[in-house]
């Protein structure tokens, strides 16, 4: 199992722990993630809010590199995932955009490189049975609210990730490692990540709604697969407390960190200390 790995900009800043835990889990399960050399930013929201050709060309530059490696691309960040997938979609459907992207890159890109989220690789290529065989510990019935947010599942025509209204990919992983995945209504509600620096008032409202629902469902933690969701839901808990008095105190933990713990990988290799709301309680619950 060999893939071209696109870490994304957050891997070197706000989501080091996602990068670290993903790499550690891959190693433990025999997945070879070869980093795309010289990879560049996908442009994310500012690019698609600014220019259609720009927002297709920035991801396409990386897809073209992966094409030379002859491998599928694996992504961990949901925002990068959606940008890379959208670039393929645009290039395949609009000859004019393909032409402009070709001009921007200095060579043609045909839109054919397959883009996968690491969670898809775990479920489709490694498969649950093999993950189960590699487990050293169990989540021991830990109640987990799996949160997918926006960019993994939407728009479904482009991403084709899972059911856009009731996805279960993360839930299947949580169940496989001994957790109790909760049925709750805010799996795909937006946390407001795109406004995180500009309209924190809106972000606080949206994140509060998600966390309030997670707690009402009995969650002991929220599992995520997107750096925007993670930092937003984690970092904004202090603001929510200030503004509403509600102290959610819910660890927001990457699915790869939960999986890593159960594969017997040590907490420091998974970057657990980087989470703002301490996941200490969760680690204690493991058996």
């Amino acid at each position, binding site marked *: 199992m060999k893939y071209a790995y696109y870490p994304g900009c957050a891997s070197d*800043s706000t989501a080091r722990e996602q990068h670290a835990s993903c790499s550690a889990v891959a190693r433990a399960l025999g997945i070879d993630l070869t980093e795309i050399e010289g990879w560049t930013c996908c442009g994310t929201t500012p690019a698609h809010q600014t220019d259609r050709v720009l927002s297709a060309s920035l991801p396409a530059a990386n897809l073209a590199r992966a094409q030379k490696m002859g491998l599928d691309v694996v992504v961990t960040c949901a925002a990068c995932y959606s940008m890379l997938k959208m670039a393929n979609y645009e290039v395949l459907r609009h000859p004019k955009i393909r032409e402009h992207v070709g001009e921007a890159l200095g060579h043609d890109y045909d839109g054919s490189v397959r883009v996968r989220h690491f969670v898809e690789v775990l479920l489709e290529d490694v498969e649950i049975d093999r993950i189960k065989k590699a487990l050293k510990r169990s989540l021991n019935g830990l109640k987990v609210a799996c949160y997918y947010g926006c960019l993994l599942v939407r728009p479904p025509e482009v991403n084709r990730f899972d059911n856009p209204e009731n996805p279960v990919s993360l839930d299947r992983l949580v169940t496989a490692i001994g957790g109790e995945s909760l049925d709750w209504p805010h799996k795909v509600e937006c946390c407001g990540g795109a406004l995180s620096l500009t309209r924190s008032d809106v972000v606080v409202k949206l994140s509060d709604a998600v966390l309030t629902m997670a707690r009402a469902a009995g969650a002991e933690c929220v599992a995520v697969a997107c750096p925007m969701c993670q930092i937003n839901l984690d970092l904004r808990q202090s603001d929510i407390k200030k503004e509403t008095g509600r102290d959610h105190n819910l660890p927001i933990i990457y699915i790869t960190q939960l999986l890593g713990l159960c594969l017997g990988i040590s907490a420091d290799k998974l970057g657990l200390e980087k989470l703002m709301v301490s996941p200490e309680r969760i680690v204690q619950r493991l058996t």
Partner: protein
Amino acid sequence: MTIRIKKDKTSPGLLRTVEKLADVDLSVCFQCKKCDSGCPVSNLTGAPPSEILRRLHLCAGNELLASDLVWMCVSCETCFVRCPMGIDIPSVIDALRGLAVEQKTPAPEGNMPLFNRVFLKTVEMFGRTYDLGMIVAHKIGTKTYMKDAEKFPGMLRKRKIALLPPRGADRKMVKRIFDSVRRAKEKQK
């Protein structure tokens, strides 16, 4: 909901321009408002997505670009998933954003256009995002020095945010892309 418009409206307004930019046919919207029901910010905005579309039908002009949804929309794509007519509303909003910047519409609260500019500037310079540089530039531009300031010491300690600009990216390629997009835009004009 009652939408008030000026009686003397005769020009076709932005409708065709937006349809072309976003590659959508807005005539199929039958105002069921399913988009509004799922929109996470619809109860915070002055005009939810369905109203933006209706106003476009009713020949809205540049005044529409000042609607708060234009920059409050979080691009969550929920409206698009749920619209029974499959209208790509997020692309409509992106088109309005492009026009708002072009028309120099006054900066909205939080100045998202500035954020986009500084974000893309760091990408053009370093090939990847440089969070700290971008945050500082946005703070200077919006004079919001103290906002979230208490969070930085903790984030720096946990190395949740990088102090130095990123290295290792193919900066030449990114520069090439930005130059090419700028050239194409100029040609259009």
